[in-house]
């Protein structure tokens, strides 16, 4: 089973790690963690700063923080999986849904794993455009990971997003 896990930010890392560990901890599983840097993020930052030649610097910084993030996820994931499961890390530049779909195709992924939403409470009410595009065009199965939101959890709104299973709507 080849599993492609697209990590956007640190919002849903715990539920994603838990899901992947629960569902795919088997011999033969190959995990690839992917983060996509959007070129627009880099140029947007650039316009607010003066001068050229900054692109490279910003890009390097993005790359660094993305690999730090993915390394953290890998470190979280490793102890929860059987030791023989390799976890690759990949940071790519491009339009997120395109890069995710292309990577899935190139690495012949059997399943793509995505978080259900990014930051911000409103984003929970609808499916993100990246998820929608990936769901619409993926050739393989797609998992949208959500923190569990059963009724009893709804009463406690103060739990942090990192509480994973306890997060509410």
């Amino acid at each position, binding site marked *: 089973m080849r599993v492609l896990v697209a990590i956007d930010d640190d919002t849903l890392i715990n539920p994603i790690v838990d899901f992947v560990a*629960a569902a795919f901890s088997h011999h033969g599983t190959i995990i690839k963690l992917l983060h996509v840097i959007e070129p627009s993020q880099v140029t947007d930052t650039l316009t607010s700063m003066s001068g050229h030649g900054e692109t490279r610097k910003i890009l390097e910084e993005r790359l660094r923080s993305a690999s730090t993030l993915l390394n953290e996820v890998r470190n979280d994931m490793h102890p929860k999986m059987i030791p023989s499961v390799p976890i690759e890390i990949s940071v790519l530049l491009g339009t997120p849904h395109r890069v995710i779909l292309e990577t899935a195709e190139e690495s012949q992924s059997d399943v793509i794993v995505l978080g259900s939403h990014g930051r911000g409470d409103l984003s929970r009410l609808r*499916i993100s455009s990246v998820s929608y595009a990936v*769901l619409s065009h993926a050739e*393989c*199965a797609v*998992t949208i990971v959500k923190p569990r939101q*059963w*009724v009893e959890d709804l009463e406690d709104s103060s739990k942090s997003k990192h509480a994973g299973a306890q997060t509410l709507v």
Partner: protein
Amino acid sequence: MITKVLIPVEDLLFDEEIREFLVQLNTLAIKLKVLHVVDANRAVYEWPSMEYEQNSEALVRTVAENLRSYFPGVEVETAVREGIVKDEIAREAEAFQADLLLMGSHGRRGLGKFLLGSTAKDLIPLSPCSVVLLRAKKSLKHGKAKNDFENIAATK
């Protein structure tokens, strides 16, 4: 841990994919529930209600029996509900305390129309748990679902 998996079905199109995914899980510890939601808006003009209900029962029973034969000892419940499909699935997921919704990315309605079934897309924000949307194998993508549904109706 994934211990409870709700499987909403519209036809038998994803039978094999569902099985292949479940093999990945620790099936000794899991409980399954097969759900079909009769779309309240459509049943009225598409099928005489009684017949549709019987087909729905036959559908969930068939899916459940197939699962039981592949995963002996695993508890498989069935349910047929009526209403707005996405709402009923979300409600059932909550009542069952599902850890996972496992379903095809589209049902018969979606075939040839949309790549992603509107129920699947609308369901995700409502779902209280993670959702796995399975993709039909290419060879099955065309023209199988209808036959399956007719077969069920014929064997009831």
